[in-house]
């Protein structure tokens, strides 16, 4: 019996791998993101949703602001290149079907609660005993056991617990709180580590022919992603201070972010001033008569420049405020230094570099007779970008072909549907 698997339009690294994805309820985005990454690496990812649909299908924004199980842009974003069936795995009748699917799978990727796992017979012991080739890769908010096992958390709360928020925010806005960055980064960190663990288990199996369990905690992934915060505390006993538009340190740094004449901002880290670059900066300011005292020779002495960096940045801030963000960014780059305008995500759609890299993809939604622009992947493989992506599946889109391949008749499939099993 062969499952009718759609070969993904993706780069082939993992194209011999079948992943079953069960995203659960507690951290469905982290799980789905991991599945999306595996699909982008070439794996065939078969998402198994409960009959009522994955919870993220109910989260907006929605296409044309119309809530619908097949119109959630959150679901679309995280589920490209996957196949999809529905199955209520917690019902006893689902047991045989689920076992058959598992027997075909290389990886079970899931975010089920331990209690639900036990209900479907997937305790740690059962997993270790059953299919020796199967890799069971679990992502959970805090871990599958331990004192915070059942704790609930949003993306912002993971950023709080993981230390990301303690490093992020403002030092010059009275009473402002620590800030969580937008976009779902805690989910992404958790999903990325889930993929790292899955790939490690996959290669291990390539070497020794055996699967195993992988258990990834989003909290762990966040907790190791705070750069110098931990070493700073370990070595000095100091905590880093969150500060506006720059990285947290145990002292307040000179600014790394500058407001320009057009109200946009430029990110510029004031370092790497060799003598040539410094000369270029001073000459640039001199063209507008805004160099103030920066033309003085003493600034060529590295120690002096370091010592007076706050003052130097004040002068630069006054100069940058008179020019547009584009001009400031290009001007800094022309001096051999590193800077960029703070873009909004949509600003990248016209970016000539990303166009040349063929980064954005047109993804077709044939049932809507439309196609939309999606981001691609972060890499070229053998000189090629990802050239095509399939839209996220409709709910239960592949029920018929998959269940028929499992040997079920149309009548049986209809009965399962009516009985709420699929």
């Amino acid at each position, binding site marked *: 019996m062969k499952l009718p698997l759609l070969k993904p339009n993706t780069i082939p690294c993992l194209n011999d791998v079948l992943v079953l994805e069960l995203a659960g309820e507690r951290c469905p985005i982290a799980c789905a993101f991991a599945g999306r990454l595996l699909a982008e690496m070439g794996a065939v990812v078969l998402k198994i949703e409960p009959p009522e649909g994955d919870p993220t299908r109910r989260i907006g924004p929605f296409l044309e602001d119309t809530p619908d199980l097949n119109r959630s*842009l959150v679901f679309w974003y995280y589920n490209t290149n996957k196949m999809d069936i529905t199955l209520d795995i917690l019902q006893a009748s689902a047991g045989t079907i689920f076992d058959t699917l598992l027997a075909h799978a290389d990886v079970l990727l899931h975010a089920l609660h331990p209690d639900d796992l036990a209900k479907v017979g997937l305790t740690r012991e059962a997993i270790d005993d059953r299919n020796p080739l199967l890799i069971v890769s679990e992502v959970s908010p805090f871990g599958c056991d331990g004192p915070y096992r059942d704790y609930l958390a949003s993306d912002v709360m993971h950023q709080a617990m993981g230390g990301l928020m303690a490093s992020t925010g403002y030092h010059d806005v009275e009473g402002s709180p620590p800030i969580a960055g937008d976009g779902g980064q805690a989910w992404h960190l958790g999903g990325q580590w889930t993929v790292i663990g899955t790939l490690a288990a996959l290669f291990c199996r390539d070497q020794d022919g055996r699967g195993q369990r992988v258990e990834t905690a989003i909290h762990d992934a966040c907790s190791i992603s705070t750069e110098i915060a931990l070493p700073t505390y370990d070595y000095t006993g100091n905590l880093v201070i969150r500060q506006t538009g720059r990285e947290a340190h145990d002292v307040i740094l000179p600014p790394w972010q500058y407001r320009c004449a057009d109200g946009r901002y430029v990110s510029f880290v004031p370092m790497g001033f060799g003598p040539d670059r410094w000369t270029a900066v001073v000459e640039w300011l001199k063209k507008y008569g805004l160099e103030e005292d920066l033309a003085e020779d003493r600034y060529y002495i590295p120690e002096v420049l370091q010592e007076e960096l706050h003052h130097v940045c004040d002068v630069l801030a006054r100069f940058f405020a008179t020019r547009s963000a584009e001009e400031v960014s290009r001007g800094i780059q022309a001096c051999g230094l590193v800077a960029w305008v703070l873009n909004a995500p949509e600003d990248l759609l016209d970016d000539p570099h990303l166009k040349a890299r063929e980064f954005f993809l047109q993804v077709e939604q044939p049932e809507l007779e439309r196609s939309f622009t999606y981001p691609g992947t972060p890499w070229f493989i053998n000189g090629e970008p990802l050239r095509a992506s399939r839209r996220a599946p409709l709910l239960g889109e592949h029920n018929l072909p998959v269940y028929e391949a499992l040997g079920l008749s149309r009548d049986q499939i209809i009965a399962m549907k009516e009985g709420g099993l699929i």
Partner: protein
Amino acid sequence: MRDDSRPLSGVRIFDLTRYLAGAGGPRILGNLGAEVIRVEWPQHPAVDLTRFLGPFQDEEPGMNRSGFFAQINVDKLSISLNMSSPQGREIARRLIGVSDIVMENFSPDVMSHWDLDYESLKRIKPDIIYISQSGFGQTGPNREFRTYGPIAQAYSGMQLMTGLPDQEPAGWGFSILDHMGAYYGAMAAMMALHYRAKTGEGICIDLAQAQLGCTVTGPCLLDYTVNGRPYGRPGLPPGNRSFHPRAVPHTTYRALGDDEWVVIGAFNDTQWRSLVQGMGDPAWAQEERFSTLLGRIDNEEELDRRIGEWTAQRERYEVMHTLQAAGVPAAVVQTARDKLEADPQLRHRKLYTRLDHLILGERWYEGVPAKLSRTPGQLRRPSPMLGEHDEYVYHEILGLSRQEIEQLRKDGVLTSEVATT
């Protein structure tokens, strides 16, 4: 020799990476059991500047005294090798010939200038796996631009997306894209290892950090391409609020003490009622206008003020535990100190490992968030001194005699001394 307790045992990596985005990937592979040979040189411009970033042991800078470098480079060997010398590059070629993976994050033309690009290396080892990381990728109009984490974050939108809606962007307080760059570097290496195990073929992967940023800005990008709604509009970024899904309450609240914070959220009416109970059923919370989501949205500011009054009198962990026990999502804004000393879950997961280093002494190191049941891997060796493993790599792996090694030192191809203080 294969060590069955670690998944990547037997894999050798020729590691030319530096900084966090580059060097962090091989570190993970080292934690998972790969033998990572890190190529270094003590002088500018080749030296990894991370070695000179603080914090330092006893606040004294030095090549082998950086705590930041140490955190990034656990489980690696270090060899000195002068890549500007043709002899050095010849040795590099020989080492690559007995390695599985080459990882580098130089500016795009450096490796081809050295005849160490993928095509050249395929002639030495046809199944070589070649991972290049850079700011913008090996091709395209921006290929020559260098990036730091904050720059790539600015480019992709991540900086603008971090802050309060009515203030300038706060930006990320650390290089999150450097961390993610490291994670994708590790992923690239491992997907390539599987590909090679399956097909016998090597592969070349060109990973671009700024591009990576553009894959993680989230569904708001689709809100623009599908609905025409730009991110750059009033009310965004959301600060700590929850707009998708719309949950009220959801934000930070001050707890007892100076600059101590919790995050509390209610994602449905059940959680709201549990929150009310958890706060001791205060009279104000019984009002009809708070009992529905729409009512809470209309009264969000007052709701936050009221909840803040409750949390301000309570110790932050007490708030979290009380509310979580009642089924309400709640979290403490934890610092590095909290994670090390007050987080029983991280302790249970054994996320931090203590390793002893000749100069740095015993320090805490961040471990591996993905726990493999059969081959867990664990952190084993602290970061290396520059050139610490010259003897092992050149004599035992490459088979050079001690006289040959000595001559290479005299010729300036290897470094003459390994600093031990």
